[in-house]
């Protein structure tokens, strides 16, 4: 019974797009990755483009872009190409975002003697033109999230603030409750 529950949960997670798509570090063939269909609450995403970022002294980073038909928003998978056209996935697609999938605007590298900082720029759909930047550390064959910054509108002006991937939320009121949270 417990096995059945676990199987059911796994099924739900996969169906809801909650689980990892490829799994960081998991090998997948290049063509196999391109052939994948990714899903979010917004719909299905197909492979659209592969961008290669060549960095002095480091293995090139390959960014695989997935797009939904007739709408903005990109899911990206970043990896390095191993022998036999195998992709070592370093950053997996975020198919479980609790927001609208943003538009991938570009990827930049700032190499140093040990590795490189990787900046990924996003624009968020909407009239405010919200943006964010993810900063990763690319070193020793890994790509680790360092920080995130968000361009927000505050008091009628656009302002860069330190961002977070952690959603801080509060429970909603039950209808029978009368106090405001």
């Amino acid at each position: 019974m417990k096995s059945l529950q676990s199987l059911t949960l796994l099924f739900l997670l996969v169906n809801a797009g909650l689980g990892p798509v490829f799994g960081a570090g998991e090998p997948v063939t290049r063509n196999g990755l391109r052939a994948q269909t990714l899903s979010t609450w917004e719909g299905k995403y197909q492979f659209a483009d592969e961008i290669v970022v060549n960095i002095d002294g480091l293995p090139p980073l390959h960014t695989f872009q997935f797009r939904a038909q007739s709408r903005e928003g990109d899911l990206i998978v970043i990896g390095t190409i191993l022998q036999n056209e195998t992709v070592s996935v370093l950053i997996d697609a975020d198919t479980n975002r609790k927001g609208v999938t943003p538009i991938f605007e570009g990827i930049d590298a700032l190499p140093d003697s040990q590795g490189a900082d990787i900046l990924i720029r996003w624009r968020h759909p909407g009239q405010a033109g919200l943006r964010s930047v993810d900063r990763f550390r690319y070193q020793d064959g890994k790509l680790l999230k360092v920080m995130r910054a968000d361009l927000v509108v505050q008091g009628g002006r656009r302002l860069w603030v330190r961002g977070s991937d952690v959603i801080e939320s509060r429970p909603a009121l039950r209808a029978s409750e009368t106090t405001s949270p």
Partner: protein
Amino acid sequence: MRTRTILSFIFAGVLSSWLPASVVNECNNSVCYVKKVVVRSFIQCPDYGYQTTFTCEHYLNPGECFSLIDGVEGGNCYHYYSIESVTWIPICGIVGSISGLPDTICANEIVNVTANATGGPLLQGVAWGGDALVLNQSANNATVRFPNGGTNRRILAQAAQGQATPAQATTQAIDIEVLEGSTLKSAGDIVRIDATAVMPALKARLKNASGMPGTVEWKATIVFDRPNRNDTNAFTKTLAATATWDIAAEFGSNFYGGTVTVEGKHTAASGATSQSCNPFVIHIRGLNPTVQVLETYIGTTPWYATPICRHERAGDLQFNVGGQEGPNFLTTDLKNTPNRGGDQIGWGAFQLTYLFANGRVPTTTEVWSWKANVDTGKAHLTTTCHSEAAAWIASQEQQQQNEEPTMPLQNYIFVFNGTPFQKGTARTPVDACAIQRNNGATSWVIYWKNKTTTTPGSWEYVPAQTGYVDAVCGRIAN
């Protein structure tokens, strides 16, 4: 006095009879000659004991007779004439041609023209016809321009005397007039999209073009490049030179504003083409509706459209209310130019920026027509924003159903700036998310927090993301 008058007639008759027939000029083999007649005058004033003689030269045109009439001058003086000599002088010949005047010029364009003669030098040189303005003139060369434009503007060349028919060249002087309806506009004027969102009825035509041959290739270029717009739209039309170009008809149902430059290139019947002449610059600006008219047009569906518009336009309307109106939309003259928000990317009443699922930027029509801006703003809300919000909430309800079936969404209230949102009421969680989506839903304000092995699932709202929904809810009342 009567005696003197009679005497004058007697002298005239006598003197005329003295003139030999050969004094009349002639042309021979297309070469004109003129008779130079040297006349001696003798004036005698017996009352004053005064008398004097002098000579002067007269030149006769072909066929002209020379007559001298002795008579009484003022002060009781008598005037007698005698012909001292008559000689033939081949002074001019026929003026052959005028060069330097193209078939078509621009009004006010400065043109150098030269009169070329045969049979002798010019004595009079270049003259002018119509309303030509001569800037410099020598014997056979002139610098001219036609300040008012028009059909068949003439340059003449003729000799002094003896030239029966001057050589002549004509040109079409091109000048542009711009009208709003039937009202002539001056260069630099401002015309306005009216408060009911109707484009000005711009037209163009050539000045004084009645009967002008040839065609005109018209072009109107409208530029509005205030950041972040880079709008340049050009319209062209080829018409008869006498026709009026209905520029506004080229716009169709689209709206444009900014700086308009109208140019016309005339092609004469000979095929010669002028340059684009005297570009005519005029400015299009826009007039706002009243707030009441605007909000009546927005209507009440969806209910949050008007509060969003109130929040977005931030005191202005489709066009800027403050400042001064003028030609410089980039810096000093912002009044009646499209309302660009403090974020410098949104335009108009709804501050349109990135629209619909494909994120397109607003069109010129959405920037310059308040009705189009409202139509698109509402369409964006009711399609993209509402449909995505509905899909989001549906996905979260599905997860809730899977994880915690006893916690349906309708049992929960989400309060933004004092305004409650509850499924099944007039203001729903989908509405809240749709409002947020208009601005941007980096993280949705409402979501189902999935259960973990240690905590149950729960309906949550995200305080860090509620600013826009709070602000819009704050504008529900006004």
